[in-house]
Each structure stands twice: as structure tokens, then as C-alpha cells.
């Protein structure tokens, strides 16, 4: 039954989308893709300015720089003016109201831009937030801004499931989980105030293991996030879960957050097959029973371990009407399905109506991996990470394996 549901959901997605090849990628009819850059490095999140200039954040320095500004001055679609700045690695990259916001794995900076989206003082950004935890695991700090002058920052939990001994077989969960006071959630800060810390920010939402993709939805005026669900159900709890269950569970969840939201990590995970919250095995769960008190439910539950690294609500007018205000999610691709085949390495689309998902998700851009064998082995050619919308309504997708940035456009 379990595998039947899985097969059905994937098959439905492919069937609905009717994807056709366009270079490396497979896209719906009428769409085309162009590699703006390739082999650029570990390109994570990106932002595209109103004049088409691209800013991209790198997870590894390239010639000593962690942010690049890419400008196409001759109109051939490829950048010919490339400048680097920001000598730190990281993930977050957002443009808002004449400022470029960037995150390292501990801090958030902003850079003033001029009228042509040149960085006014690339060596002297304002440090907006400082001192966020980086304990290697889940250390990327993704960012999103609302329309009221606030910035939201993810601080990932430095653990899989808050065990006494992280990722060890049958190691029980710590109660209460002490990680949650300074990680495993979203913090809210002012976008224009220097040197904010945990103490001066707002602990906005909790119980989120690790968020990499997040976006402010201007229709609902709320923050949406994609959580990376916990790993190693069968590896750590072989008496309770088999490898097939462990490959599918738990769901990769999309949540709509409000101040005070608690999504339940590490105490529960969401089981997309039983359609319910179940108690984590570290906290006495058996894969069936739920928690005494429910936590917030997701708005969309995807199959396990696909690793959502980018989220974007599409507000452009270039794509067909059904895409308007819907969500694109970039799935980096799984590793924790082994020894079962890996999955993901695609960008999906979730239709939205009136601020709620209004139908099944479907695969929008596929074949980043380079074929079924490479998907199954996890040895993918490319892995989607960041998403951004261009001024003309095109969708940009980064790959952080080799450093491709694709521009996906629609021609009527």
C-alpha cells in the first residue's frame, strides 16, 4: 500500500506535467531554459534586481569572494560584467527596497545599492544580526523579508532528533530538547537595525528541525517555510522501522508560520501516508501513536528526504495563469533513502488559491540529475538549490554542485 501511494503520487506528477527535454532539463511544454552561468562554484540562494542584475551567494569562496554580482551589459543573456565581494561563505541572498541582504553561517549583512544596483560600499556592509549558532550541522542561515521592515532568519538544529547521543542507535531524546532555545526555529529581526542578537530579536517560530527554503507570501502576508525532516528512522530504530518506511518517512513539510508557531520537532514527525503527526521514536513513539498534544500541521507534505532548499511564491505574469501566486520548491535530492533508491533533484510546483494549496503538486523542472540511474544512486549531475524571480517573470534556479544558474522562461 505504502509503495503504491508513492508510485501513484510520482506518476501523477509526471503525467500532469507532460515534461519535454530542453537541454539538460525537462520542462512543461512551452517553457525553455538557458544556463546563464555554469561551473561558477557552490551557488546557493540568489536574487535578481529590477534591471536584471543577478546576485548570488556562494557556500565556498571563489577567488576569496562569497557574493557575486552578475550583469549582462551586451544583451546576450550571459553576464559579461562579473564582480565579487563579501569574503564569507553562506546561503541567504535577498534584495529588498534598495538593499542586498546576505547571510554567513552566523551573521546577516546588508549592502546599500545605487540606482543601477551597484553595491555602494562592498567592503563595508552593515551587520544586521550577529552571533547565531553554527555547529556545522544544519548551519546555513536562510533569510526572507516581509513588507513591514522585518527579516526572518532560520537557525537549524545542530542534531537529527535531539538524542542523548546524536544519530546513535536507540539513543533516547533529551526532554525537554535544550537545542530549541537557540536553534531549530525562525528568529525575527528588524531589517535596518545593526548588531541584533538572539537577545534583541524575536523567537518567531519553533520546532523546525532545519529550514533552508523560505519565502514571504504577499497574498497571505505570512512566512512559509520548507522543513528538512529528520533522518535515520530505520538506521537508528531498526526494531520499529524498516528501510522502505525509513526512505519514505517522514514527510518534507511546508508550513505557514505565525508568531508562536510550533511545528513539533524533535518530539513528532509528520507521516504523509497515515496523514498524521506521530510521536518520534526518541520520545516513546512506535511509528503509529500520536502525541498527547498536537503541534501545527503542515500545509503540504511531500515524500521523505527530498531536501527542499529553495521556496518561491511566483508573482510574475510571464508564466501561464495557473502559476500565479503558487509555490515553486527546489528539492536538492535525497541521501537518506539508502539502501532504497534516492529521489528528488527537481523543482516542483504547488498551485495555490486564496493563500492555500489548491491541488496536487507536480514536477515542474526535472532531470537535474541527468537520468534515472543518477537519481537512484544519488550521483546527480546537478542539484537544485536557490530560486528567484526575474523582473520579466522568468524563474532562476541555481545548482550548488557545479554552479549553474538556469533561467527558465515561457513562450506563448
Amino acid at each position, binding site marked *: 500500500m505504502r509503495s503504491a501511494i508513492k508510485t501513484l503520487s510520482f506518476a501523477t506528477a509526471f503525467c500532469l506535467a507532460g515534461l519535454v527535454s530542453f537541454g539538460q532539463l525537462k520542462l512543461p511544454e512551452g517553457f525553455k531554459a538557458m544556463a546563464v552561468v555554469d561551473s561558477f562554484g557552490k551557488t546557493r540562494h540568489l536574487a535578481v534586481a529590477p534591471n536584471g542584475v543577478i546576485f548570488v551567494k556562494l*557556500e*565556498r569562496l571563489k577567488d576569496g569572494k562569497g557574493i557575486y554580482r552578475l550583469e549582462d551589459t551586451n544583451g546576450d543573456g550571459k553576464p559579461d560584467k562579473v564582480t565579487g565581494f563579501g569574503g564569507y561563505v553562506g546561503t541567504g541572498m535577498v534584495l529588498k527596497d534598495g538593499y542586498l541582504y546576505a547571510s554567513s553561517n552566523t551573521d546577516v549583512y546588508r549592502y546599500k545599492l545605487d540606482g543601477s544596483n551597484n553595491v555602494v560600499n562592498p567592503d563595508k556592509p552593515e551587520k544586521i544580526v550577529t552571533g547565531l549558532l553554527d555547529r556545522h550541522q544544519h548551519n546555513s542561515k536562510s533569510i526572507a523579508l516581509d513588507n513591514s521592515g522585518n527579516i526572518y532568519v532560520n537557525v537549524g538544529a545542530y542534531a537529527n532528533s535531539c538524542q542523548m547521543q546524536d*544519530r546513535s*542507535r536507540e539513543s533516547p531524546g533529551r526532554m525537554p530538547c535544550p537545542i530549541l532555545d537557540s536553534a531549530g526555529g525562525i528568529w525575527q529581526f528588524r531589517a535596518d537595525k545593526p548588531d541584533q542578537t538572539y537577545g534583541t530579536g524575536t523567537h518567531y517560530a519553533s520546532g523546525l528541525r532545519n529550514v533552508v527554503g523560505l519565502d514571504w507570501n504577499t497574498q497571505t502576508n505570512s512566512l512559509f517555510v520548507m522543513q528538512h525532516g529528520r*533522518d535515520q528512522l530505520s538506521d537508528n530504530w531498526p526494531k520499529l522501522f524498516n528501510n522502505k518506511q525509513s526512505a519514505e518517512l517522514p514527510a518534507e513539510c511546508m508550513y505557514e508560520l505565525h508568531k508562536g508557531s510550533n511545528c513539533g520537532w524533535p518530539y513528532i514527525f509528520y507521516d504523509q501516508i497515515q496523514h498524521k503527526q506521530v510521536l518520534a521514536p526518541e520520545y516513546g513513539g512506535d511509528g503509529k501513536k500520536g502525541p498527547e498534544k498536537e503541534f501545527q500541521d503542515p500545509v503540504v507534505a511531500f515524500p521523505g528526504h527530498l531536501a527542499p532548499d529553495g521556496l518561491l511564491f511566483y508573482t510574475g505574469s510571464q508564466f501561464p495563469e495557473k502559476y500565479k501566486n503558487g509555490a515553486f520548491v527546489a528539492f536538492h535530492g535525497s541521501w*537518506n533513502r539508502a539502501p532504497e533508491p534516492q529521489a528528488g533533484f527537481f523543482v516542483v510546483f504547488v498551485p495555490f488559491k486564496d493563500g492555500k494549496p489548491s491541488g496536487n503538486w507536480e514536477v515542474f523542472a526535472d532531470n537535474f540529475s541527468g537520468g534515472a*540511474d543518477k537519481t537512484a*544512486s*544519488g*550521483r546527480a549531475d546537478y542539484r537544485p538549490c536557490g530560486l528567484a524571480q526575474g523582473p520579466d517573470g522568468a524563474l532562476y534556479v541555481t545548482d550548488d554542485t557545479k554552479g549553474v544558474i538556469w533561467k527558465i522562461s515561457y513562450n506563448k
Partner: protein
Amino acid sequence: MRRFRILFALGGGLFVLATALMSQAGKPAQGPSAAQMTRGKQVYLEQCLACHQVDGLGVQGMNPPLVKTKQVLGDKAALVKIVLNGMQGVEIGGEDYNGVMAPHPDLTDQQIADVLTYVRNSFGNKASAVTAAQVKTVRATTKPPAQ
């Protein structure tokens, strides 16, 4: 398996060579016994595969590869310590790996010797076997990690 497929794709002529290489990798002339490799593989499947993957190549940015690295092919005592104490945060070949490896003090000396021998002689690796006695010596001088 992946290597097998790649070699196979090169053509039928190379098939024989590939097969010969595969069997040679499994039974090097002065390497481990077939029995130890079989036992080691079993430990690998149960304890290591989830993170280091079927092909031993690990996971980008998270779980380090086990193929032709100095950690795997170099000092055996240091390698045994990684299994006993776990590990986090390592740079290999210009890549950072941030995943957490749990300590495995619960494995017996023989199991650790077997799995490390298997890893040192699989995925294209070739190195001397690890013995239970060697593991025992390292364990006796290694402080267990704080819980």
C-alpha cells in the same frame, strides 16, 4: 556496482578486464581473507551504508567519502578512533563535510576490524587488513567521548 556499470559501458572488450579487476579488488594477493571481507560487508550494510552510501562516496557537504582518502587508507589507529569516537566537520579534497558520525563503541573489536578491512579494500581502495588485536590496543588507550 557503479564502477562496474561504467566499465561495462566502455565495451565488451573491457568487460573481462573489469571482471578481473573486481575479483582482484575482493581478493588482493596479500590482503584480507574472504571471510573477513564478508563479515565486514555485513557490518558496513548495517552500520555505515545509510550515510556513506552504497558506493562509499558519501554525501556532498555532509558525509565524507571513504574512497581513496588518507583517513581511510592511512594510519589505522586514527581510523579506529574515528569509529570508536565518531567525527564531525572534516575537509577532504577541498570539500567540507558537516555531517555527524555517531561514535560506535558498542561494536566489538572484531566487528570494527572487519568493517575497516572491508572499507580499506572496497570501492577501489586497497590497503592492509585491520586486526581485532589492533582495535583492542587502540580502544584501551582511547577515552570514550563524553555523553
